[in-house]
């Protein structure tokens, strides 16, 4: 078979985001040159977004096995874990960064729609949403526009579909200015035996497309996510979400899941019908035969190419038992949804696309599904030399610690995010025991005594300064947040947001972060069950901080006793679990007060981390403590202030440890949890901590209506409360 390179131009290849050598590989494997439709299908399936070309070899480093894992990473649309009582929890996080950069409202809204479909496509009822957002600083009008748009887009879509948005995080740093991050996580629940697979099986079974009509939306969306600076190029891919249609799809698909008509179910996400049919065929070890002339279109004269690559939202592909088509259509139609038979399952392993009688594409499913992978060489970024050389001693001593604490509390990264989450319905579905605002959200599981805890965390600044350590901390912190509500971590999902992996320093970051995450997963025995990778997050050649987001699921055997971060009563003792350090590198304090992002990220002793978390869970379960809150951004001082604000009661604390006071107060040393407890429980808490070699230092008591830290900080609680409560609103009100 001969092949001429002139058959396809460089511009053609650029349009589908394939390299010349990938094209040659396609020709060789196919034994002929692909036609245009086929080329487009390859481009989409071999994009980073669908094919994980650069990340797949690295993802293999993450541990994926565990005793609770029912469906592991990479197997299905989302991972599933056993939570007991015959139930499975399905969860995953996904990014919608690039669309949100050009149309924040619809970009974020359709991001919610996409992740929700990944959950109910497995038959699970979505019971919670979380989101993790990154923007440039709010002193810029464009960033404020993106922030407001994204939050209201999430609110619009999530509220309308009736899934409580129970948690998340928002952070601001200038590296995200042109490239905000919008990561959304969805959690669903289902009796284990009802889990639905995304598989096309059984020759002769029928493929039905249901939901929205297909338009020319988002053609090349998958490859769009693989290009830097999307703003300049692919503007046409932004779509308008239809949460009402999604809600109908949820209910209809869950109803269908109760029948035995379904063989498999697959949402249409990136690369639309191409990716969903290829994956269903490939995973089902069969083929599919699709007639695009049957696909209901919203626009005139759509070509097979366009139909196969459209990313129109709110569509699902159902693989149904032959003969059950009418019953299935009746269920959809009761919910006001239009469904159409578009093809059938075959036994020859081919993805065959027909347009009426003409065959428009014919490719073995495994060729499309097995994208080439690239293992690259990473080299340490140049900036690390400088940041590692930084001496914290060189920072000027603080004159006014009160002022510094107030500034930190008001900094948008630390300040209350209530102005965000009050726009999300977090109590619908009547399961929310602890909503947003705490370390982790807690949901009850109706019909059982058990609870679920969920959180999502990431710190790009740490990963920028130390990819390995930052990756480990992302996992450890998520687990620590679960420990603070007494929950045992079961599994995690993650979204890896990075720059262009073809750059050696970005690749180094990716490699380091994944290795660090893997180390923490091993130490904490938390496997990875799902995730998503978003690369090419750059503006004008400048990558974002390497930003892994870790979404973690934990379990509470019982909802009682329950603990929050809020101080409960005057007279309680305050103790610090874990080691006190005077490290301030990479902290919010250094960034906000001294204006530099530098130093080494906090180090983490994973072994200590495991023991601190275990002690925290134990003393919560034993009912020994009144509150628990981990030290994160802003360090010990901010953690104490947050517990005081939440409880409406002040504290008096002696600054523990030795070294520079600013570092002791605001440094972000890991593995530390601030707890408050009745004095009579102290001996028991000490004993449990001592058994596991975890330092437990009494540092003060809950009292009065002032925030007092040694002789350095003293202010009315109301002042701290005001700074923290209004921080984001004040940053937003700035005009500039």
């Amino acid at each position: 078979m001969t092949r001429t390179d002139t058959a396809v131009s460089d511009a053609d290849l650029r349009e589908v985001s394939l390299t010349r050598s990938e094209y040659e590989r396609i020709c060789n494997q196919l034994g002929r040159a692909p036609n245009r439709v086929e080329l487009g299908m390859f481009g989409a399936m071999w994009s980073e977004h669908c094919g994980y070309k650069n990340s797949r070899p690295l993802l293999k480093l993450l541990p994926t096995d565990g005793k609770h894992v029912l469906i592991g990473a990479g197997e299905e649309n989302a991972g599933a874990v056993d939570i007991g009582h015959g139930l499975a929890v399905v969860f995953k996080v996904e990014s919608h960064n690039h669309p949100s950069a050009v149309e924040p409202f619809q970009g974020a809204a359709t991001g919610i729609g996409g992740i929700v479909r990944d959950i109910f496509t497995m038959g699970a009822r979505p019971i919670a949403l979380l989101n993790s957002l990154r923007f440039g600083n709010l002193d810029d009008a464009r960033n404020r526009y993106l922030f407001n748009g994204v939050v209201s887009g999430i609110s619009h879509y999530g509220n309308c579909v009736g899934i409580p948005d129970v948690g998340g995080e928002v952070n601001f740093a200038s590296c995200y200015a042109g490239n905000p991050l919008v990561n959304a996580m969805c959690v669903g629940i289902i009796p284990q035996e009802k889990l639905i697979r995304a598989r096309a099986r059984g020759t002769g079974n029928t493929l039905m497309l249901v939901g929205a009509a297909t338009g020319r939306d988002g053609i090349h969306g998958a490859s769009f996510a693989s290009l830097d600076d999307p703003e300049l190029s692919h503007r046409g891919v932004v779509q308008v979400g239809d949460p009402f249609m999604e809600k109908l799809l949820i209910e209809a698909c869950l109803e269908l899941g109760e029948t035995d008509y379904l063989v498999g179910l697959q949402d249409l996400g990136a690369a639309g019908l191409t990716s969903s049919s290829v994956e269903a065929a490939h995973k089902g070890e069969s083929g599919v035969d699709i007639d695009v002339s049957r696909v209901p279109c919203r626009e005139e004269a759509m070509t097979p190419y366009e139909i196969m690559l459209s990313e129109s939202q709110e569509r699902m592909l159902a693989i149904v038992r032959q003969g059950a088509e009418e019953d299935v259509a009746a269920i959809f139609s009761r919910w006001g949804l239009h469904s159409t038979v578009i093809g059938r399952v075959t036994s020859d392993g081919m993805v065959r696309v027909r347009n009426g009688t003409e065959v428009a594409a014919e490719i073995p499913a495994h060729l499309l599904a097995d994208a080439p992978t690239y293992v690259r060489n990473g080299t340490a970024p140049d900036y690390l030399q400088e940041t590692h050389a930084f001496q914290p001693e060189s920072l000027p001593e603080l004159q006014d610690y009160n002022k510094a604490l107030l500034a930190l509390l008001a900094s948008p990264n630390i300040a209350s995010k209530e102005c965000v989450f009050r726009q999300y319905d977090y109590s619908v579905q009547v399961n929310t025991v602890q909503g947003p605002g705490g370390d982790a959200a807690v949901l009850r599981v109706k019909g059982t005594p058990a609870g679920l805890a969920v959180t999502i965390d990431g710190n790009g600044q740490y990963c920028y300064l130390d990819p390995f350590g930052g990756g480990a901390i992302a996992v450890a912190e998520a687990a620590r947040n679960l420990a603070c509500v007494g929950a045992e971590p079961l599994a995690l999902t993650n979204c890896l947001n990075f720059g262009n992996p073809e750059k050696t320093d970005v690749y180094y970051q990716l490699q380091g972060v994944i290795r660090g995450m893997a180390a923490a997963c091993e130490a904490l025995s938390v496997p990875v069950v799902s995730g998503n990778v978003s690369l090419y997050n750059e503006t004008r050649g400048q990558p974002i901080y390497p930003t892994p987001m870790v979404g973690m699921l934990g379990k509470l055997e019982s909802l009682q006793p329950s603990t929050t971060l809020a101080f409960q009563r005057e007279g309680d003792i305050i103790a610090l679990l874990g080691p006190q350090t005077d490290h301030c590198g990479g902290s919010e304090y250094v960034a906000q007060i001294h204006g530099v992002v530098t130093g080494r990220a906090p180090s983490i002793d994973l072994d200590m981390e495991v023991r601190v978390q275990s002690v925290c869970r134990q003393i919560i379960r034993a009912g020994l403590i009144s509150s628990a809150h981990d030290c994160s951004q802003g360090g010990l001082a901010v953690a104490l202030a947050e517990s005081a604000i939440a409880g409406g009661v002040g504290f008096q604390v002696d600054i523990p440890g030795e070294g520079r006071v600013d570092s002791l107060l605001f440094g972000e040393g890991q593995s530390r949890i601030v707890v408050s407890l009745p004095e009579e429980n102290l001996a028991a808490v000490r004993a449990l901590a001592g058994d596991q070699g975890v330092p437990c230092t009494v540092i003060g008591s809950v009292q009065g209506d002032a925030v007092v830290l040694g002789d350095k900080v003293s202010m009315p609680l109301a002042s701290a409360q005001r700074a923290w409560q209004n921080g984001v609103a004040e940053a937003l009100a700035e005009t500039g």
Partner: protein
Amino acid sequence: MKLGIVQFPGSNCDHDCLHVVRSVLQVEADLIWHEATQVAGYDALVLPGGFSYGDYLRSGSIARFSPVMRAVTDFAEAGGLVLGICNGFQILTEAGLLPGALLRNSALEFRCGWVHLRVESTASPFMASYGHGQVLRMPVAHGDGNYVADPDVLSRMRDNGQVTLRYCDAEGNVTPTANPNGSVDNIAGVCNESGNVFALMPHPERCAEPELGGVDGLGIWQAMVLALTSAPLRV
């Protein structure tokens, strides 16, 4: 006794209400599909919260034309108890079963959180468990809860005791800062002239169990059941 909870396309508090009636009140209940043309066999009806038809034109405006709404109207006119919650409130105003209308929240944002409510009138059977002036704490979650009505309509409502609940602070003071949505007079819940149709923006089904942070909503459900036990209203 059996309660019917109307399920519109886009309802999303239908199952929450069903859960409270069945599991907390231990009373029989069904979902009623929006295409149903009659509601015989039900002793009271609930129009739950959510985003019927996406609330795409105005909240509740399309749902009011669902076939079931004719039956709901007949049921209400015959004196049957009808409770509207959130989107249910919006649907009942659009259908003309309650006066006024609900506009976009004045802050132009969806608002979720806990609010305090003062019981302004116990004239309606739904309020029988509460005392006049009692302060309740309930969750709200809505984008269009900004109640308006013409001044003359409002004054008639006040005279008739139709203004049932108003947003207040924890001490029961009706203040502008306690108002989450800009409602005229801080109005959170109203009933019709005869008191058998009642609706509110807050969610009594979300505060009927202690683990969810409060039980002040339970009284509305219990009052409904009590009213049905003492004077069956089956139509």
